[in-house]
């Protein structure tokens, strides 16, 4: 699955502005509604929680306003997500509870309280289950919420209200019930009872849905979810406990235990609002870390540093950040190496785009960047750093291309040399041998003595042929020694020592086989370097040593006596140096403190 998010998700500015304005307006209305609720409660404290004390008043307003404020701020940060509006809705829903108050005076307000007072719990649960994307992940969540809304709004709200006649059910102080259709006290209390029982069921279902969501979320998403889901779950549990407490009574009430539970609910909602703001703190920290990296990068760019920051901040150690380079584009890591081709089973690829152009691609655990807002955050925060790393990666990728091309050229040259050597051996030399042989096959000349001049001429030609064969052999060997291809570096260096103009002392040589280009580079280095040393005045000999250190072959050729190089050594070894360089190795030539010439090379030999 490939999801594509543009960092300007949210569409036009108009949409963004109207979303923000809407949230702000709703929030303002909600806040005012809270004040109105408190005023109503204080006017009739007997039927309220908030009106009884300052503690109650503070709890009422703090819980509601905290959720509203968190919702407005969330919409401000991510206008595209409806999570903010749902939070504002939950905050307003919290105030509904207070309107279930017989002393509220106005029939309209009393009727509203009868119907809506139980809606707070589903509203809060809705906001929590839809956080942070503002939409519900699964059909199961949708079903559970519909169940809860129906249970709270209909069975516990509207339906009993249709039959609840305050006058006949012992509430002489109660205002008129505007929703009353027919006075059926038995049916009304029966429905109330059923609503309470049903409430236990939907409360349990909501808590289970929340837990399921936490368990199924990817670790990074879970880190973002639990500060919101856990307090919301506690809130629903307390609301459920209140339903249990209300069962014997047959109706929701406000005795001291109800009040204690209500205070607990308020505390949970405040924590939930804080949980929402905790995500901002985390995002801010991510952003700060990325910005720090960008500043650091301006001084000395650490390739891959951005990946490390993202991996750490998003909690996915295997996260890979790749940049599209070249034409046609291919993806490389910050160090210029090709990125992993296909995402693994539980991995997803998320392109980070700017202005319709993919700047980078994040390969990460599935679910990590499901929230478009998060992608937006990452893309915005990492923009500068990414641009910097992308350029760096591009340069490195080009360098790698060049080196690969160079290695291919050298390998192609070697293959050509090898072919030439074989052609000379199997073709020309073979023919000369056959010719020399044919020369010796005497033509039948019965009864006739061989012409001595002819015999001498044949001997002469035979001698010349042998010289030609020798020269051809030397030529072929110089082009590409068969022993190097057949037997490897050690055997080829030993063969070299048999013909070198100076004594060669052979120290340790790796006996196993190495990749052919490495063996060729090593061999030609020894050949060139020993030839160079042999040409120096007063040369006495040279020592060759090679060993494998980890995944590198280290070769050193040292002259046995102090000598003064007649020319620039590195310039004289340019060909070999290119060979070594094509394999990503390096060559160094210089003099030991004692004045001996030393030529050293390090060649990576990992295949």
């Amino acid at each position: 699955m490939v999801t594509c998010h543009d960092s300007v998700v949210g569409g036009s500015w108009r949409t963004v502005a109207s979303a923000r304005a809407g949230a702000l307006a709703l929030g303002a209305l909600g806040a005012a509604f809270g004040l109105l609720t408190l005023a109503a409660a204080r006017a009739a404290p007997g039927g309220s929680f908030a009106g009884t004390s300052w503690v109650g008043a503070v709890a009422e307003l703090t819980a509601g306003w905290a959720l509203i404020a968190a919702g407005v701020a969330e919409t401000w940060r991510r206008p595209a997500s409806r999570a903010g509006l749902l939070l504002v809705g939950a905050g307003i829903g919290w105030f509904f509870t207070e309107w279930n108050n017989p002393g509220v005076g106005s029939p309209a307000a009393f009727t509203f309280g009868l119907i809506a007072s139980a809606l707070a719990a589903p509203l809060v649960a809705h906001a929590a289950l839809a956080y942070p994307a503002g939409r519900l992940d699964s059909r199961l969540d949708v079903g559970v919420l519909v169940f809860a809304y129906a249970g709270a709004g209909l069975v516990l709200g509207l339906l009993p209200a249709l039959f609840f006649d305050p006058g006949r059910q012992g509430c002489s102080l109660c205002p008129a019930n505007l929703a009353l259709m027919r006075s059926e006290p038995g049916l009304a209390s029966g429905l109330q009872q059923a609503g309470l029982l049903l409430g236990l069921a939907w409360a349990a279902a909501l808590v289970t849905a929340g837990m399921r969501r936490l368990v199924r979320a990817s670790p990074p998403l879970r880190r973002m979810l639990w500060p919101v889901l856990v307090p919301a779950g506690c809130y629903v549990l307390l609301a459920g406990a209140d339903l249990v407490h209300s069962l014997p009574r047959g109706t929701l009430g406000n005795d001291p235990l109800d009040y204690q539970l209500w205070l607990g609910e308020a505390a949970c909602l405040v924590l939930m609002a804080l949980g929402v703001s905790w995500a901002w703190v985390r995002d801010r920290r991510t952003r700060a870390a990325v910005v720090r990296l960008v500043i650091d990068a301006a001084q000395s760019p650490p390739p891959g540093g951005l990946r490390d920051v993202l991996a750490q901040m998003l909690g996915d150690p295997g996260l890979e950040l790749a940049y599209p380079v070249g034409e046609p584009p291919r993806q490389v890591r910050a160090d210029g190496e090709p990125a992993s081709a296909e995402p693994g089973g539980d991995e997803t690829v998320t392109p980070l785009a700017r202005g319709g152009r993919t700047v980078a691609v994040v390969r990460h655990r599935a679910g990590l960047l499901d929230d478009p807002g998060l992608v937006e955050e990452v893309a915005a925060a990492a923009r500068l750093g990414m641009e910097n790393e992308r350029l760096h990666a591009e340069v490195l990728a080009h360098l790698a291309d060049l080196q690969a091309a160079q290695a291919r050229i050298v390998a192609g040259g070697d293959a050509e040399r090898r072919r030439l050597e074989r052609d000379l051996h199997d073709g020309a030399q073979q023919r000369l041998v056959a010719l020399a042989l044919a020369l010796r096959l005497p033509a039948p000349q019965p009864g006739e003595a061989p012409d001595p001049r002819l015999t001498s001429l044949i001997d002469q030609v035979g001698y010349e042929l042998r010289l030609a064969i020798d020269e051809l052999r030397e030529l072929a060997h110089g082009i590409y020694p068969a022993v190097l291809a057949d037997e490897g570096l050690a055997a080829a260096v030993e063969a070299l020592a048999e013909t070198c103009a100076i004594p060669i002392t052979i120290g340790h040589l790796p006996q196993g086989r190495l990749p052919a280009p490495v063996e060729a580079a090593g061999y030609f280095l020894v050949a060139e370097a020993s030839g160079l040393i042999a040409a120096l005045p007063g040369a006495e000999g040279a020592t060759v040593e090679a060993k494998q250190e980890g995944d590198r072959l280290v070769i050193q050729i040292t002259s046995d006596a102090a000598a003064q190089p007649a020319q620039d050594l590195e310039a004289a070894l340019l060909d070999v140096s290119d060979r070594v360089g094509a394999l990503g190795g390096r060559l160094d030539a210089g003099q030991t403190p004692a004045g001996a010439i030393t030529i050293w090379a390090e060649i990576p030999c990992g295949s």
Partner: protein
Amino acid sequence: MRVVIADDAMLIREGTARLLEEAGVEVAGKACDAQQLLRIVATEHPDVAIVDIKMPPTHTDEGLAAAEQIRSTHPGVGVLVLSQYLDSRYATRLLEHHPEARGYLLKERVSDIGVLKDAIQRIAEGECVLDPTIVTRLIKRQRHRGPLDDLTDREREVLALIAEGRSNLGIAQALVLSPKTVEAHVGRIMAKLGLGDTPDYHRRVLAVLAFLRA
């Protein structure tokens, strides 16, 4: 004397066979690759198999592998490997473990029937043969000062013949010396090179070769 010849180059195979036949050597079979050679050896039991080092399929060292195989299946059959390579490495691979009845000559020797016939003769008698050019190259190799510098010219000649796989008698004939004189030379050479007294002929060859290659 019966030989078989294995070489994938038809001209050389046929030419060598004709030259050998005219020199009185019986050519019992001709092969163009190692498999065919092994089949002919199994049926003909020749005294010596003359084998090109490079044969199909890889054209690298099939001849050496065939020599190894003949040793295990037909220990009584000698093998003369013909090679393009001067490097002593290949020759050493042929001789180092079992030098008995093995020979290594450069390919172009086939046109010198004298050398070729002599080599086959010696291999059939169980000696080992190494091409003089390779030996010369080894002896001429640049070295730091060492025991080789203490040898007289005559001793160097004798040393080369030892390395070529000659017996004392062979050396005496080649240099026109008495066997006793050769024996004295050999003793001195072995002492000077620090190789000790090695009475066994094959071990003597190997010791000298190892000394020269070191």
